[in-house]
């Protein structure tokens, strides 16, 4: 029940703002009270429009995140596994990392057009770097002493990877996936600002252009809920493999 304590502040603020508008102390045109935001959400939901936007945004995230994660995992594992490939690849990737991802937008639009591909590519680039750095760092920091245990028991290379390296890097990898997914949500908005006919980012722009702050806030609220849900799903999917860490957390 202790987590409920976290709800006190936002609920109190919402109620206070609601009351201020209701009793005429504030106008609520640019900052609509919670009741109006929820009414807008409700309207968007019953027409089915909200879900169309959610579906569009989620599909972009999944495609971009998936693409970015696969590329980052492959290249990160390669760079971690061999010093040569690390020396060849890593400086270039670190250089590219220094480029703000949004800077790619004009180029991606020229290359891939203004529709889905350029959006997905932008999200993929955004997700790529934290995952790449995460897996590379995790591989490089695997304890040599534990690898030696594998050698004493004469593990083959695949067995060494499966029984020692993978479990050892998994915690850091999951953290990097969650960071990557968080960035994915950030970049999907940027991508949808590039021009989209649907999606939560479109709702934001539409709300701005038509002067509907309630729609903007409804979209922001949806982002918050979806971001939290997808992060929790990712954490829950990894949890069975990390119970040994939970035991650690519970102890201390």
């Amino acid at each position, binding site marked *: 029940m202790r987590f409920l304590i976290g709800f006190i502040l936002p609920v109190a603020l919402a109620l206070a703002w609601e009351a201020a508008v209701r009793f005429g102390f504030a106008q609520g045109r640019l900052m609509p009270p919670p009741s109006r935001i929820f009414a807008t959400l409700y309207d968007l939901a019953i027409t089915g429009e909200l879900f169309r936007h959610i579906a569009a945004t989620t599909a972009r995230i999944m495609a971009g995140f998936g693409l970015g994660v696969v590329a980052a995992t492959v290249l990160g594992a390669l760079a971690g596994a061999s010093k040569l490939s690390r020396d060849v690849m890593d400086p270039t990737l670190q250089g590219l990392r220094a480029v703000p991802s949004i800077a790619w937008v004009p180029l991606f639009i020229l290359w891939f057009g203004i529709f889905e591909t350029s959006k997905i590519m932008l999200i993929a680039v955004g997700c790529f770097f934290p995952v790449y750095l995460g897996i590379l760092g995790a591989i490089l920091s695997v304890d040599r*002493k*534990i690898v*030696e*245990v594998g*050698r*004493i*028991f*004469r593990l083959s290379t695949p*067995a060494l990877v499966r*029984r*020692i390296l993978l*479990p*050892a890097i*998994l915690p850091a990898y999951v953290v990097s996936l969650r960071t990557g997914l968080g960035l994915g949500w950030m970049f999907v908005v940027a991508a949808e600002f590039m021009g989209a006919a649907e999606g939560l980012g479109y709702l934001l722009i539409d709300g701005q252009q038509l002067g509907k702050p309630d729609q903007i806030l409804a979209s922001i609220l949806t982002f918050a809920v979806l971001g939290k849900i997808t992060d929790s799903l990712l954490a829950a999917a990894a949890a069975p*493999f990390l119970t*040994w860490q939970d*035991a*650690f957390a519970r*102890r201390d």
Partner: protein
Amino acid sequence: MLLVDNIEKIYPNGAKALERVNIAVRPGEIVAVVGGSGCGKSTLLRLIAGLDRPTRGKIMLDGEKIVAPHPAVGFVFQEPRLLPWLTVAQNAGFGLDGVPAPERNERTREVLQRVGLADHAKSWPRELSGGQAQRVAIARALAPRPKVLLLDEPFSALDAFTRASLQEHLLDLWEAFRPTLVLVTHDVEEAVFLADRVLVMRPKPGRFVAEINIALARPRDRYGEALDHAKRRVLAALDHSLQAQPRGEELAPAAAI
């Protein structure tokens, strides 16, 4: 029979870690190698384990040349080195991967029982004390029933009480499985308490300078006259190896430097 035949080890930086090292260890014998830090005793153990290759000479186990880690040779490191994502039972059975599951479980259970940790089979390594973790590490090394068990200062990180109890534990396990034990330590008392034979090493380059046989029946009295005498002989050899003159009571535990 474990044979270390005229071993020499030179590191890539040119430092000579071992020079003309020879040992013959009978099956079931307990040999302790003592010496100060940096005398090459851990290097020697890593060579016997096949974790490193000697520059010259060879290591033979029952007529077979050791060039890489061998299934009949177990190793206990100074730290437990348990895998934190495996339970105690999974750690103990780590080396039994090729064994069918029912037999693996049975042997894991047996070996955990032997080290007195059957109740902790489902615990995580994090939940164990240092002494318990090292017992799991010994169980893990013994589970594949090696002919030779190598121990690299296995109890040096533990407090004196735990160390004494683990030494006795190790002897119980040795009674049960009768592996050849080669123990590297800088603790002279540990060496004379456990070993049939103590080999004293001298650094730069590492080589043997004395061999002290300890023909005392087990169980031994840790504080008895006979062990004390053996201890003095080892210390004297160590002091001699450091070019100092031993004088009666002033025999400091030079090996612990």
